């Protein structure tokens, strides 16, 4: 198991390198010019050229890629064209808000979605099942920004319970931290919640029709025991899979959520960098996301062994 995990971690290196090459190539081919943005609207073409040269953007593709790759190999993601700050510093500044948003979203989503799916499967065909499914369809089909604005209007502007925007570090207290993150986490988590609830319901319905469940009932095992000790554990593999796959959706959703709630996270950093063509930042963030995504998939694979002892690596 340990050897497998190590192999998988090592196998992320070529994946990340391939991603790095593609990201660099795409950005090189993509139109846009950071020098023109820096110089501003009133700058002369000559000024734009001088700035481009000073940033090294006039060098050939191979030279730029080799230079960038050399620095990557030494753990240096480069320096932002616009802020003149190291990309690692900018990522470090932004990672806490994004990580906090992701974790809280996961907690809220899983805490709500799994019981919802289990209850819907248990009460299959009843109004409870239908209510859960309607909620899931609503969550799945409503864009994050609509939910975000709606929640902000109700809980911040109308009820005046929570702030509209911003982020407070957990180091400044749990309550201020949660006050800022609850609305964005719920907004972002709704689609995730819907996805997991639907999968949980479908898988549980399948598991609940299995013979061993009937046997457990016959032996007098209580309803709660059947659902949560026997059935849910056996339904866990597809649920864990969807949690992993949904992580990519979560990253995409975080970009929108961070913009709507003005959270200074990696999503906003990425959007700002793309709009300004801040190449080192875009490359750094994409590398980070691809690495994290690979690690999440590894975690999912390892979790399979926990829920299903038949799976061995």
């Amino acid at each position, binding site marked *: 198991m340990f050897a497998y995990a190590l192999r998988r971690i090592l196998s992320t290196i070529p994946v990340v390198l391939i991603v790095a090459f593609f990201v660099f190539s795409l950005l090189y081919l993509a*139109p*846009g*010019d*950071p020098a*023109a*943005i*820096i*110089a*501003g*609207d*009133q*700058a*002369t*073409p*000559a*000024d*734009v050229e*001088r*700035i481009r*040269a*000073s940033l090294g953007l006039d060098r050939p593709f191979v030279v730029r890629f080799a230079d960038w790759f050399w620095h990557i190999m030494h753990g240096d993601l480069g320096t*932002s064209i*616009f*802020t*003149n*700050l190291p990309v690692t510093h*900018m990522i470090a*500044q*932004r990672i806490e808000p994004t990580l906090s948003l992701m974790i809280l979203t996961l907690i809220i989503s899983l805490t709500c979605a799994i019981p919802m799916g289990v209850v819907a499967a248990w009460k299959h065909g009843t109004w409870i099942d239908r209510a859960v499914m309607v909620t899931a369809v609503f969550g799945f089909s409503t864009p994050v920004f609509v939910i975000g*604005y709606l929640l*902000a*209007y109700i809980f*911040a*502007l109308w*009820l*005046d*319970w*929570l*702030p*509209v*925007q*911003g982020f407070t570090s957990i180091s400044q207290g749990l*309550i*201020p931290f*949660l*006050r800022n993150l*609850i609305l964005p986490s719920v907004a972002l988590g709704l689609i995730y919640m819907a996805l997991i609830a639907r999968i949980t319901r479908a898988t549980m319905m399948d598991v609940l029709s299995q013979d061993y469940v009937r046997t457990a009932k016959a032996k007098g095992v209580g309803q709660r025991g059947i659902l949560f000790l026997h059935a849910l554990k056996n339904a866990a593999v597809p649920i864990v899979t969807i949690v992993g796959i949904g992580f990519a959706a979560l990253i995409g959703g975080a970009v929108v959520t961070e*913009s*709507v*709630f*003005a959270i*200074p996270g990696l999503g*906003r*950093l990425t959007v*700002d960098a793309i*709009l*300004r*063509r801040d190449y080192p930042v875009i490359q750094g963030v994409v590398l980070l996301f691809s690495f994290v995504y690979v690690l999440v998939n590894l975690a999912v694979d390892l979790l399979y062994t926990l829920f299903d002892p038949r799976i061995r690596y």
Partner: protein
Amino acid sequence: MHRRDFLKTAAVAAAGGLAAPRIGHAADAKVLRFIPQANLANLDPIWTTQYVVRNGSLLIWDTLYGVDDQLTPKPQMVESHEASADAKTWTFKLRPGLKFHDGEPVLAKDVVASIQRWMVRDAPMGLPIKKRTDALEAVDDRTFRFRLNQPYPKMLFALGKSSTPMLFIMPARIAATDPYKQITEFVGSGPMRFKRDEWVPGAKAVFEKFEGYVPRSEKASWLAGGKRINFDRIEWQIVPDTATASAALQNGEVDWWELASPDLAPLLKKTPNVAVDIADPLGNIGSFRINHLHPPFNDVRARRAIQMALSQPDYMGAVVGDDQTLWKTLPGFFTPDTPLYTEFGGDILKGKRDYEGAKKLLAEAGYKGEPIVLLVATDVAITKAQGDVTADLLKRIGMNVNYVATDWGTVGQRRAKKDPPSEGGWHIFHTWHAGADCVNPAPYTALDASGATAWFGWPKSDLVQEKIAEWYAAPDLPAEKKVIAELNKAAMDDVVYVPTGFFKAYQAWRKNVSGVVKAPFPVFWDVTKA
């Protein structure tokens, strides 16, 4: 305690805690929370000409002169100046007691180094001064001198200009940085110091009161007079989404929003604790920028066809909506309600639009239905709105439109290409010019018609250039007005570009904040918060 009671108690406590009144909610009168017009991604006002950088720099760095609300340059760091009778030697003396944020005194050598860096990057005014300068020297610690080989009558205006790049005074060691490279230290002598340790680009920038700053004794007026700061901290919060910014202002999470969206202004006006007013009285001029190098627009008749068909109300409606207090038509190139404003020569932009006449002119210019490459930056609301109106206009006059929807970063790159439009070049793009840059020809890059060295589109008109030169030499305001009227007509006749109208924007602030003024930049001095 029973389990259910415990859960109930915990839930109530959690809800109560989360819904507790915001700590510091508008309570700290010494902190001003401000949403700027854009992200403050860097702080070198010479390296980049973005307005948001200029606005942040106004807090950190001081200027030799500053324009007041009458657009007159007034001494700021300078105590006095003296010009020789032939206007070739200018001697300036600095105020006593000027200090940088690191405690070092501001010396004439710092000023000389700052001017030298600025001159290289300021094409409209700095470079012409540089070309005329035989010597720029520090006479003593508080005195510096220009020795010119020919007079430059607009010297004070140049040293105090508010358009970018502005002349900010930095320590000589910082000003020695290559003007095409970014500075790495943000040490100034302005009223606030930059808290670099709290800077999160794209999210937050913090300025802290500089106790060593000695304001002038005069009343503040825009960039002139005493810059008295009434806050310990000014926090810039970057809120990219306008709806969120509006809600944050309504909720009291921020105090002042520099550029309130016109769509949300009606809502903000109804909010009891929020005040809404025009941000910049000098507003902006919308621009229909034409490439003069390639057919059909290398023929002035094709450019005039656009002028006679273009409806400014259509453009302004698309840019700022139904609020008619925010815009007016502009049959001229200069900022309305400023001393040099003129409509002379602008009749072609007035009255009923003549589509048939435009079609006829296009035919005379040899247009035969070739695709017209229209670059539209769809990520910028103003350019997107103008681009959509233009696409409709071009179709109405029988042109074949190739609508290139892209982002501003791409427009910024592609507009620099002089290649034919069919080979990656372009015919038309849209932008807008700050009214503060269009009050006279000096900062007005877009009006330059010098051909290959002109701004994108590369218009060439000897008459326009002649009139600009005459303005520089004009001895007084009446003479300037006469020349500007002729310049306006010459630029209209050659169709250097087509103004799409004059528009303003709103700013909004909490009513417990007072002293907010209308200006082309946020003026933080004399603002207070109850």
